[in-house]
């Protein structure tokens, strides 16, 4: 695999890169900053490489330099290329690749925000993650910045929205996005009902769990915080993190462990897609389907609770496998439930397929052309709805997916309806996968003991979350914690395509178009949400509360 890549690299880019290591499907090369756009560009053009993320790291204690790593995936070869650029602390600048790959926009701004590495030639070098009044010269991901440091804000308002077209009106949506109930701010430039341009401001709730991972937590503790990155698809994050560690240290997870992971991942996809179907209908005011879809979803949550002891399958993953076995009667329980869900989903889909009001709302709204989809490097159902056959389960097989028979659901429509159809078809594929998983379950060990992990090793992993590909990167460090842990949630890639999605649409299409990406701001911003409602003045104690909650009147 890596041979082909190496050979074509040698032809195209002789002298522009140095081979650092070649480990199975992962190729690491070092490239100078000035050659970076050229190398990345020709990898994309010649080899069809897909950009995943840029990772900045402070490696001054080890190598004396900062480091920026561009991660690209060559899906046909099932391999990754890591392009490393060492940054001299005296220079602190790197050439931008956003001109070549628009999808690298946020990644590069993040490197600039959190490490203070200036990105030269970036089309939009405004702040992305740090608050507007965060003082200059204070970079949270540097090693000399304490995890709990709180610098004084300087009161300067740095970011302003991008200038809009002449003569347009501004319609602000947010900072609390009305239909998603999550913090996001859209600054729309409109003429009448038509959207001419827009600016997005996000990362209101960035909490810096990557910093926590490389300064406070240990390898064994991180899965518990990783699974709380997302409130819906938490299991994908802990699986992806564990797989990255397992890849770095060569741990083989036993087959039953792999199958349990696969089963829970697919259960998560099932309930997430049903949740999305309900929400999407709620966005356009079709609350009947919202209720019905969530009704069908609820037994999946109960099953997850029965199998893992927790409704959200939390606390299940650990490095080396899963932390407990699933009950012996899993197969019987699941067989009845899967059959019931299958009929119910078929009934609902059958009912809505020719609902003309639904189709009128969804068809031709939020159009993302295949070219734009490729440019913004979108993933998951968003990519598949625009005709790109990207699916991590097939492109980079993990867990037990190599043994399973399923198809990638691709639609050519490029609109919200196409993305809906992708998810509806995936629900059926997921049911198929679950049935196969249950049939393959055999008694056996479900996890292996893990010894310590060497420092300086790179491990990476992708998992196909319901929203698209999740990517975790580990650079192991001293003291049983990573030197750098990078999480790229699918929405991080998908949300960058919003400008392409909305320009030319009408304002009424905004909620459903954005919603059709199934965005998850919590994932993108890597945080935990704590809801603090103001308390009642009467003091209740636990037993009073229980009594009052259970009695009517």
């Amino acid at each position: 695999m890596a041979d082909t890549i190496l050979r074509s690299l040698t032809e195209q880019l002789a002298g522009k890169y140095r081979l650092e290591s070649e480990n199975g499907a992962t190729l690491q090369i070092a490239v100078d900053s000035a050659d970076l756009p050229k190398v990345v560009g020709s990898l994309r053009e010649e080899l069809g490489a897909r950009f995943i993320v840029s990772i900045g790291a402070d490696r001054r204690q080890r190598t004396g330099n900062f480091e920026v790593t561009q991660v690209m995936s060559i899906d046909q070869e099932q391999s990754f290329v890591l392009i490393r650029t060492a940054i001299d602390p005296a220079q602190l600048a790197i050439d931008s690749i956003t001109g070549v790959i628009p999808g690298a926009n946020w990644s590069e701004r993040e490197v600039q925000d959190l490490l203070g590495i200036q990105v030269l030639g970036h089309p939009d070098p405004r702040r992305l993650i740090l608050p507007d009044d965060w003082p200059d010269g204070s970079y949270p991901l540097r090693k000399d910045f304490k995890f709990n440091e709180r610098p004084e804000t300087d009161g300067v308002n740095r970011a302003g929205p991008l200038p809009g077209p002449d003569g347009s009106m501004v319609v602000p949506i947010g900072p609390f996005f009305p239909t998603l109930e999550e913090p996001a701010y859209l600054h729309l430039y409109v003429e009448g009902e038509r959207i001419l341009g827009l600016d997005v401001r996000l990362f209101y709730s960035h909490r810096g769990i990557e910093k926590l991972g490389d300064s406070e937590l240990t390898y064994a503790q991180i899965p518990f915080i990783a699974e709380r990155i997302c409130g819906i698809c938490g299991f994908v994050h802990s699986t992806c993190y564990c797989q990255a560690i397992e890849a770095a240290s060569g741990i083989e997870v036993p087959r039953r462990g792999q199958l349990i992971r696969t089963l829970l991942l697919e259960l998560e996809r099932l309930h997430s897609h049903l949740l999305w179907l309900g929400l999407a209908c709620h966005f356009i005011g079709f609350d009947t389907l919202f209720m019905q879809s969530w009704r069908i979803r609820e037994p999946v949550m109960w099953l997850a609770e029965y199998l893992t002891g927790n409704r959200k399958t939390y606390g299940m993953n650990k490095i080396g496998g899963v932390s407990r076995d699933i009950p012996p009667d899993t197969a019987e329980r699941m067989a009845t439930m899967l059959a019931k869900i299958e009929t119910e989903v078929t009934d609902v889909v059958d009912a809505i397929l020719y609902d003309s009001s639904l189709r009128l709302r969804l068809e031709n709204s939020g159009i993302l052309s295949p070219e734009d989809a490729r440019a913004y490097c979108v993933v998951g159902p968003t990519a598949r709805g625009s005709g790109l056959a990207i699916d991590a389960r097939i492109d980079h097989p993990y867990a037990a997916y190599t043994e399973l028979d399923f198809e990638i659901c691709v639609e050519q429509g490029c609109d919200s309806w196409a993305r809906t159809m992708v998810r509806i078809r995936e629900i059926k594929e997921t049911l198929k996968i679950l049935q196969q998983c249950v049939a393959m379950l055999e008694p056996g060990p479900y996890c292996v003991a893990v010894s310590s992990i060497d420092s300086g090793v790179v491990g990476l992993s992708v998992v196909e979350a319901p929203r698209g590909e999740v990517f975790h990167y580990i650079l192991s460090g001293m003291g049983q914690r990573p030197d750098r842990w990078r999480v790229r949630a699918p929405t991080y890639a998908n949300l960058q395509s919003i400008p392409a999605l909305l320009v030319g649409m009408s304002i009424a299409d905004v909620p459903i178009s954005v919603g059709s990406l199934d965005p998850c701001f919590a994932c993108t911003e890597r945080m935990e949400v704590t809801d603090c409602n103001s308390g009642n003045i009467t003091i209740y104690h636990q037993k009073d509360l229980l009594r009052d909650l259970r009695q009517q009147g």
Partner: protein
Amino acid sequence: MFKHLISELKEALVCLQPGRVTLGYPFSPHNPEGEFRGLPQFDCELCIGCGACANACPSRLITLQDSEDYRQITVLLTRCTYCGRCRDVCYMEAIVMSPAFETATPDLDDLKIEIWLKTLRCRECGDVIGTERGIQRASEILREEVGIKAEDMIWSTLCFRCRRRASLQTPALIEELKYDWLNA
């Protein structure tokens, strides 16, 4: 148009078929089934204060504090994620994950568990060696499972620093310990 009409009729059917699905909770209690993990419960009679749970807790909610004569184990369940790691590592099986999930309360003490265990001090330097129960349990294991000789149990009254000092530098202390043990 006709297709749309059929579609709407089917939608109505989908709504009618399941009937009432809302559960009685909170007006009737909800009992989770299977291996549901709710608030952990600590059996104070079994706990030996070894601190394995404190090491394992990813939320760092379990703390050990040695005071004059007691070891205080404090469990503050505020940020508990019900992961069950404490239960998994507990040697004494003193922790069970209860089905209790209703944890909303204005009083922090509702979520606080405190265990006080008497400590044993080194007879030479007075440092805390461990809890009485812990050392008793360790001695039992050493006697019954490892098969250590009864007179070697004299070492259990010293902290690890004094044990080292005694065996390397002050053999007289060993004799004294043996004498005390025989006459106890």
